[in-house]
């Protein structure tokens, strides 16, 4: 209790998380590879999740990881890999004139004004406990559930409808029309046939049925070849 009730572990956690969050955010913006950006986004998400724990919102922290990191970003990566849009973007050039300068100016102005106006008002008291107090040994999960399913029942229903709409919309957007399917498939089969294994990989097919017995001695030869 002595160690943990002190302030500095919290402060240290916060600082570390802030670094992770901001670093991850910058990584998203600055990395020229979308997969790297996604990884940085995951980093940010984890930082935010830890901050949630720090703010005694355990449940949200886990949900954040499950939904954001486990589903949304995976979806991002899935699409990136599926479409092969992981080509590296030229961050050095900007086709739109002044876009970058104005964007940075606007962004910094926004940040400055938010902080500037808010400074000194951040800790002003709002109304306390409109819905319910988040307390107890369950990290407020019960309170959260009560609030969600009673006070926020209508938004809850509306968002669920939104989710259904999104799913249906996505399916409609992705769904193919009948005739196009055949052409496309023919194209692929043509491409696949020509799509032979790449350099050095022909030798790599000695895959045993039982993977436990697999020694993968072939790797050496492959490696030598590559080195040579």
């Amino acid at each position, binding site marked *: 209790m002595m160690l943990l009730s002190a*302030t500095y572990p919290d402060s240290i956690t*916060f600082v570390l998380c802030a670094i992770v969050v901001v670093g991850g*955010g910058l990584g998203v913006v600055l990395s020229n590879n979308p997969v790297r950006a996604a990884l940085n986004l995951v980093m940010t998400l984890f930082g935010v999740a830890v901050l949630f724990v720090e703010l*005694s919102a355990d449940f949200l922290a886990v949900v954040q990881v499950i939904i954001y990191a486990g589903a949304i970003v995976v979806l991002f990566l899935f*699409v990136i890999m599926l479409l092969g849009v992981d080509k590296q973007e030229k961050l050095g050039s900007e086709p739109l004139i002044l876009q970058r300068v104005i964007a940075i100016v*606007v962004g910094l102005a926004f940040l400055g004004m938010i902080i500037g106006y808010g400074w000194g008002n951040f*800790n002003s008291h709002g109304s306390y*406990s409109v819905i319910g107090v988040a307390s107890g040994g369950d990290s407020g999960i019960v309170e959260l559930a009560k609030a969600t399913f009673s006070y926020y029942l209508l*938004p809850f229903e509306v968002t669920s409808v939104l989710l259904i709409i999104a799913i249906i919309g996505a399916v409609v957007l992705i769904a193919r029309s009948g005739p196009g399917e055949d052409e496309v498939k023919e194209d692929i089969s043509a491409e696949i046939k020509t799509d032979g294994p790449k350099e050095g990989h022909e030798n790599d097919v000695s895959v045993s049925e039982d993977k436990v017995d697999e020694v993968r001695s072939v790797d050496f030869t492959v490696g030598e070849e590559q080195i040579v």
Partner: protein
Amino acid sequence: MSVDLSYYLILAAVLFTIGLIGLLVRRNVLVMLMCVELMLNASNLTFVAFASKLKDVGGQADVFFVLVVAAAEVVVGLAIIVSIYRKRLGATADDLSSLKG
């Protein structure tokens, strides 16, 4: 909570700004969507910080809805990207300027 609320809010503002600038600067549509996620996370952080400060679970409940909206946004956004990619072979925002006046 021992760390002052203002730090959380400033951190959220910084994160939001990063997302905003990224949205305006990056050309890859996927990265732009990620930047939107950053901004949503910043708002989530604000919500939870206030929920903790004001001891009101409502702020946490709001985050749920933000999460759902984010999920829906990503699903539809990615579907749009995929369907665009089928036709145009690219996911660069600047190519999609057929709506220009």
